[in-house]
């Protein structure tokens, strides 16, 4: 029930906000804060009771914890068989940290929304919807359910950027919507193909009358069903097609002759259907990640989004893309992913370097950080593409670490923007004399982000580096020059962060419009401390004790690496 509660709590909030009259809307932020706080506490409890020792194949339901699995939609398609959609939630090492991260970022995001005054009712309703969609996306183990939440993130996000955003918000929100929808259409294409190709052995066994309840089925009975499917002895109207992501990962569940069956020698324009499917999923999730050259929506969306939405966007939404790659693309089409490892790694490296170069060129502080996100997500891609234990661990660690650090960075931008309404780097100089605490915390965020040893960013980038470097000797997927080239990204990263520090915070105090701004240049408020200090501490603690998090994920990641290789 834990995951369902996490998921449904914000939905209850939506209903509550809908019926509460508008003149109570000043209390909405408190209620939202309470709910996201409860979610955070629940996620902590979940981590505390999470069994780190449990390990098993990543496509077995038994290796998941907090599992909830009930039948949701069941359609009888006559001669085409049956279609089953499950309400299937669970966590393993691949998503447990993402759930935790989501609750942290959403909690911080709520605090950061404190000054939203324009139509607060609408804002907090949309924020709660987004909350549900995000959590749902991470815990869903049924492709249909996953897709539902994946798409449902778009609409609230569109309105959150489009109504509460900056000057060019309409352009940015539509661009965001169109890009990500295009990506999800690619995913939808594969989803339809997949469920037509895959059966649920358990449900098929029940349909055939082998067992009465999914609880009673044994592994040998599943093997019998899978053998019968392979031999084609089950009449097609008894096959139960499924969206179950775990069933899709098992090549024994594919119907022979179906389009994504491994054994078929069908070629479509020179590539096997499974390769096309992997490519489509890859593009779909790469838009979300985002990977160069599909990243152009991100700087626009970030720059126009209000601070809390930037925090959520960078802190969690980008992670959904990476999580989708791991859980869906690489797990289901492991064979095809091997063929594209080089390309994926290359795109990762390009993102790292190109993102960093772009960040260097930006005048707008928020845009610079947006591009640095592109650069950091490149490391995630490189780590995943290497499919080594270190690389994937590094990628996961980077997801968490970037979630924390980028939230902090965007809040730092928000601090100055809320005071003056200007984010240009060259509008400020010597801020340290008036805002020492702000300067200190921004420095921490910058250093954490550029990968200074002692902060979490260093650990993740190091791991990705090790993994992709080792890949040449372990599985020959990533050539050694790729991690070496990606080093350029780290160096430029140090460059743009230090240069910005120097230009904005040090030197003589100067403002572009002193008459208008001087009164507002004050140091951090208590609310801002509450957001920045825990995040900074987290980045620091995770940089010193990486095992705090890695212990949760290593079992699953090892299984993942074995499975994909």
């Amino acid at each position: 029930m834990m995951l369902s509660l996490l998921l449904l709590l914000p939905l209850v909030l939506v209903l509550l906000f809908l019926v509460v009259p508008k003149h109570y809307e000043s209390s909405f932020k408190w209620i939202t804060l309470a709910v996201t706080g409860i979610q955070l506490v629940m996620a902590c409890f979940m981590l505390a009771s999470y069994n780190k020792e449990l390990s098993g194949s990543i496509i077995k339901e038994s290796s998941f914890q907090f599992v909830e699995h009930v039948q949701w939609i069941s359609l009888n398609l006559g001669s085409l068989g049956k279609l089953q959609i499950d309400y299937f939630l669970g966590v393993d090492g691949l998503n447990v940290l993402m759930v935790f991260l989501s609750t942290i970022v959403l909690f911080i995001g709520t605090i950061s929304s404190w000054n939203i005054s324009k139509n607060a009712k609408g804002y907090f309703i949309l924020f709660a919807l987004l909350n549900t969609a995000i959590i749902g996306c991470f815990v869903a183990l049924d492709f249909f359910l996953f897709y539902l939440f994946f798409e449902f993130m778009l609409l609230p996000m569109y309105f959150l950027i489009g109504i509460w955003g900056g000057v060019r918000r309409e352009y940015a929100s539509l661009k965001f919507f169109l890009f990500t929808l295009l990506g999800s259409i690619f995913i939808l294409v594969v989803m339809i193909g997949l469920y037509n190709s895959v059966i649920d052995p358990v449900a098929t066994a029940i349909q055939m009358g082998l067992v009465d309840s999914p609880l009673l089925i044994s592994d040998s009975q599943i093997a019998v069903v899978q053998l019968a499917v392979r031999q084609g002895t089950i009449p097609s109207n008894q096959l139960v097609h499924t969206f179950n992501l775990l069933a899709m990962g098992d090549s024994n569940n594919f119907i022979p002759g179906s389009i994504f069956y491994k054994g078929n020698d069908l070629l479509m324009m020179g590539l096997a259907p499974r390769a096309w499917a992997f490519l489509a999923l890859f593009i779909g999730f790469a838009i979300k990640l985002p990977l160069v050259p599909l990243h152009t929506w991100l700087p626009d969306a970030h720059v126009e989004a209000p601070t809390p939405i930037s925090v959520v966007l960078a802190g969690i939404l980008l992670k959904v893309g990476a999580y989708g790659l791991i859980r869906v693309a690489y797990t289901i089409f492991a064979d095809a992913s091997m063929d594209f490892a080089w390309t994926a790694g290359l795109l990762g490296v390009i993102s790292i370097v190109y993102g960093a170069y772009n960040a260097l060129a930006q005048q707008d502080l928020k845009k610079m950080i947006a591009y640095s996100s592109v650069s950091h997500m490149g490391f995630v891609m490189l780590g995943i593409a290497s499919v080594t234990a270190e690389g994937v661990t590094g990628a996961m660690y980077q997801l968490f670490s970037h979630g924390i650090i980028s939230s902090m960075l965007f809040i730092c931008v928000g601090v100055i923007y809320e005071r003056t309404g200007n984010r240009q780097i060259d509008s400020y100089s010597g801020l340290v004399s008036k805002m020492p605490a702000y300067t200190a915390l921004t420095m921490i965020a910058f250093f954490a982000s550029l990968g200074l040893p002692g902060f979490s960013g260093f650990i993740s980038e190091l791991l990705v580096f090790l993994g992709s470097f080792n890949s040449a000797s372990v599985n020959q997927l990533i050539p050694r020059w790729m991690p070496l080239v990606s080093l350029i990204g780290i160096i430029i990263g140090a460059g743009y962060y230090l240069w910005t520090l120097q230009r904005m915070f040090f030197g003589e105090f100067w403002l572009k419009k002193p008459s208008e701004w001087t009164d507002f240049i004050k140091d951090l408020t208590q609310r801002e401390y509450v957001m920045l200090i825990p995040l900074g501490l987290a980045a620091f603690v995770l940089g010193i004790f990486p095992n705090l998090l890695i212990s949760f994920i290593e079992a699953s990641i090892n299984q993942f690496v074995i499975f994909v290789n």
Partner: protein
Amino acid sequence: MEIATTLQQTTANLALFLPELALIGGILLLLFVDLFSKESIHGWYPYLTSLLLFISIILTARQACPCLGERELFSSMLTLNRNTAVLKIILQSCTIGSIIFIIADDKKPTLYSQNSIFYVLILSILLGGHLVVMSQNLLITFIGIELISLCSYLLVATDKTNSLGLEASLKYLIFGAVASALMLYGMSWLYGLNGDLQYDGLTTYFTTHTHWFYYLIFVFVLLGFLFKLAATPMHSWIPDIYQGAPNVVITLLSVLPKLAAVYLLFTFSALASDDAINQLLLVLAITSVCIGNLGAFWQQNVKRLLAYSSIAHAGFLLLGVTVGGTYGLQTIYFYSILLLLTNLGIFFILEQLKTKNYELDSYAGLGKQFPLIGVASIVLMAAFIGLPPTMGFSGKLFLFSGLWNTYKTTADSLVLWIFVIGLLNTVLALFYYIKLPYYLFFKENGGEQTNTTPLTLSNKFFILLITFSLLVFFVKADWLFNIL
């Protein structure tokens, strides 16, 4: 003796013809009431019509039992089975839905209460729909289609003070007459070649005739159906009709004739079961989808935008036709109910907002003034586009699953291309569908006050009902799908 048995059978069959008899009786009743009654009673016409429709629905619901099996009526002129009964219920619901527009309008415009002609026409369209759906004979089909068409021409011109409506009606008449002529020409050839007006003769049509000319004849007939469906290449009339006709009428016309036509296309493509015809329908379907979506791209008038989008949806229905089989029909029905709900919802909203000319600008900022309408319009648009969590997504999912299956069985790469292009059209659709919520919420009202009367409670309830059904039929799509 012969005549006696035929008569006996005919009278026995009348028991299965009760829903239609109720409609015919209703039409006559309305005409007579109009002749002999005082004007004060005219306000009751919508209620009387709804009552008649309700009776007709109950009578039809009894036919929807699978126990009835397949029944032939009136010397095999008509057929009755579960599929036709279900479709008839959908058509009746659509008609009731449009009557609700008049009931919901608390100002009770004189337009709809001068005389009963309007309601007679509406019931006649429905009767035509019933005939088309049940028909087993080309002659009945033609009569049914013409009944729909003639009433539609008149209904479009309901508001005689609106010059756009009159123009649209005339255009519709001219286009429609040409389409009917083409269809009738094709039908006469079919009759000549088969020597029989019954549908049965068509099953062997393409096995015995293979010359391209025979295809041409068949295509003539299909063109007549495509006109009613407003699919390419017979789509050019629809934007003017949408713009000119009152919302009540469009709600009816955007669903009822289209469903009748799509059912005919389904029946005929099943009868012909010919690869070339199927491929033709596939190509027409995807061109409809693309032309509709591209046409809607730059529209600044909501009604014209919806007209183009309806061309796209006609394309999706056609895709359902090419899927074929029981599953194909179920998908079409599911999609039809989707179209019924979305069209009812969106036109009801447009009717409530009462802007002058339906230009997008005139909706600026109204979302804040009418939050319920704003939210409902977002759900409706999501359903039109096919985004989860609305029924629109389920509809598209079923449709494209069917198409995928076609690809699996035929291994025709054309199908795969159409599959991909069809899905990518969703992105195009997003671009223009999002405009209405965009204007409702993002744009500020330019000071031009349009309408400030708050919604009545019952109207709010109706909007909520439609919105919720769109959501519920996503969450439990199987409830609906498994009974279709």
